[in-house]
């Protein structure tokens, strides 16, 4: 199934080749969780501060059990702020 992986700010370099700006279309297997997907791209867990699946935040303790589905958008940021 296809998922859009978006990595922002200092996490952008962890995107696979072929990514456009901050997003890449990737193929993932059934049963893939947020955590296993990010691990497979070597995104450092300690830098995954804001993790949004389809815009909804998921806390660190939930990321290992929340599966991703076909067509999902997974967006991740390190600690950032503004205003």
């Amino acid at each position: 199934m296809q998922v859009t992986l978006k990595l922002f700010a200092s996490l952008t370099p962890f995107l696979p080749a072929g990514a456009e700006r901050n997003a890449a279309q990737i193929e993932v297997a059934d049963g893939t969780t947020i955590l296993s997907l990010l691990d497979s791209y070597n995104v450092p867990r300690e830098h995954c501060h804001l993790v949004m699946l389809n815009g909804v935040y998921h806390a660190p303790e939930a990321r290992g059990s929340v599966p991703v589905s076909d067509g999902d958008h997974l967006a991740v940021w390190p600690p950032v702020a503004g205003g």
Partner: protein
Amino acid sequence: MGWTGKILRIDLTNGTVNTEALNMEWADKYLGQRGLASKYLVEEVDPKADPLGPENKLIMATGPLTGTCASTGGRYSVITKGPLTGAIACSNSGGYFGAELKFAGWDMVIFEGQSPKPVYVTIFDDDVQIRDAGGLWGKSVWEADKKIKSDHQDQMIHVAAIGVAGENEVLYSCIVNDLHRAAGRSGVGAVMGNKNLKAVAVRGTGGVKVKDFKTFMDATNAGKKVLKDNAVTGQGLPAFGTQVLMNVINEAGAMPTRNGKDVQFESANDISAEAMAEPRRSDGKPNLLTNQACFGCTIACGRISKIDETHYTVQNKPEYWHASGGLEYEAAWALGSATGIKDLEGLTYVNFICNEQGLDPITFGATVGAAMELYETGVIDDKITGGIELKFGSSEALVKCVELTGKAEGFGKELGLGSKRLTEKYGKPELSMTVKGQEFPAYDPRGIQGMGLTYATSNRGACHLRGYTVASEILGIPEKTDPLETDGKPGLVKAFQDATAAVDSSGLCVFTTFAWTLEDIAPQVDAAVEGNWTVDKMLEVGERIWNMERIFNNKAGFTAADDNLPERLLKDAAKTGPAKGLVAGLDKMLPEYYDLRGWTQEGVPTNETLERLAV
């Protein structure tokens, strides 16, 4: 200590300058800057006064930590009755002007009356003079800054000035200091223009003494370490600035887009922090040159950019080829998402013009967004816009608008009224995205529920900086709460509002609170000034300030009916994103908020509350 103990009172009507002692009893109850200057204002200005009349006063005020080596200790605020809203206005700015005012030996400057002719004021330590501004009137902020420094042969002078927008009393004109830092909101620049005061130029050669030097150094050094070690203030903000929020807020489905018709902007990434840092196709250089810090700041979140010289906005204008401030998130949102424009270079140019002419880019961009909706729905046409094809997404239209608004020419004169008056004029007040007459910024309350209550109850009209619950609801600072939930938000909003009022009165930047709590701030204040400044006292002072501002507004004529949101946010559900199907749940939060505040359900502080806080 911490204080110079002196304030300047400048009567522009009579051209007199007087000094007086700072009211230390008030300083103990209201701290400084926002709180203390607001106390002076409410004591001296009739809440029903015309904001654009000689009876209004304009106060430039520092905090006790302004000019010290506390990190970010360079802030000052402008307090007045705001012409955009009719409410009390307090606009906070960084840069170097505030610290320089303290170095010159002054905690606060109160401008009264109205000069019969354009003037500017020089404050060179104890030498304070009202000078003829005939040679400055009509000039931009940038030109005025340059000319003042040149005329006085001193490049170390720091200038706070209005541009032509303030001279023309554009209702959301701002006061710009150090070229691109601004007391931006609520139209404080129009008050300055109404007083015929073009600029305040400051040069100070003194320092700031603190109560207990060793304790102060220990407290400020500890604070700096916290900022450095925190991933947000130590890495995220300096590297990416506030603009990193563009994609965050868009992903969360809380990006007000095309005058709030949508909550996600399909081109957000084109105008984001990441886009600013990316090499351009045209010249291979990024829009962003570097970051920049205000006085004493160890975060350095400011953006310094340079426009592509081949871009249509500047290709024949080499005067705009230099580096300057921006884009910051709120400006990028208002000029971009609120108007549906994805032209990063164009937005940077418009932001430059806002700084040069002294316009609040939030209200300007949001007003153009409202005007675009009026145009696209056929309410106004080319005849009214003067031929500007005012369609969402048109960079060219936005550029024409900004070039007209500060000068109050053509359709720009109508844009200068702000969206409330503009949409009322054309019979469509529901298209104004305002609270108490001021445009809300870059967070849609349908997707961040707490911000709806923040906007509705903000004492200066819709504003994010009166209680930035985005920190908790989206960013997880200090702890994560659900942005789509209304439960618990009244308490969260109140806590943010009170703490922010205290920080705004200290001389520090509110951005420190991404890492600091009042546990970090109170010891720094306490080591600088007398008064046993504990966390509890800071919170009490913050709550007292909030109530004082509220009472002023109530006396000015505001009621609970003004604690409201634009109809669109309350009736039109979000179409996309996590908030799809949701409206702003203000009605679920406001009654509890009043209870927590110790106010009646009519939004009036009870006698018990007033006695408890000794307002």
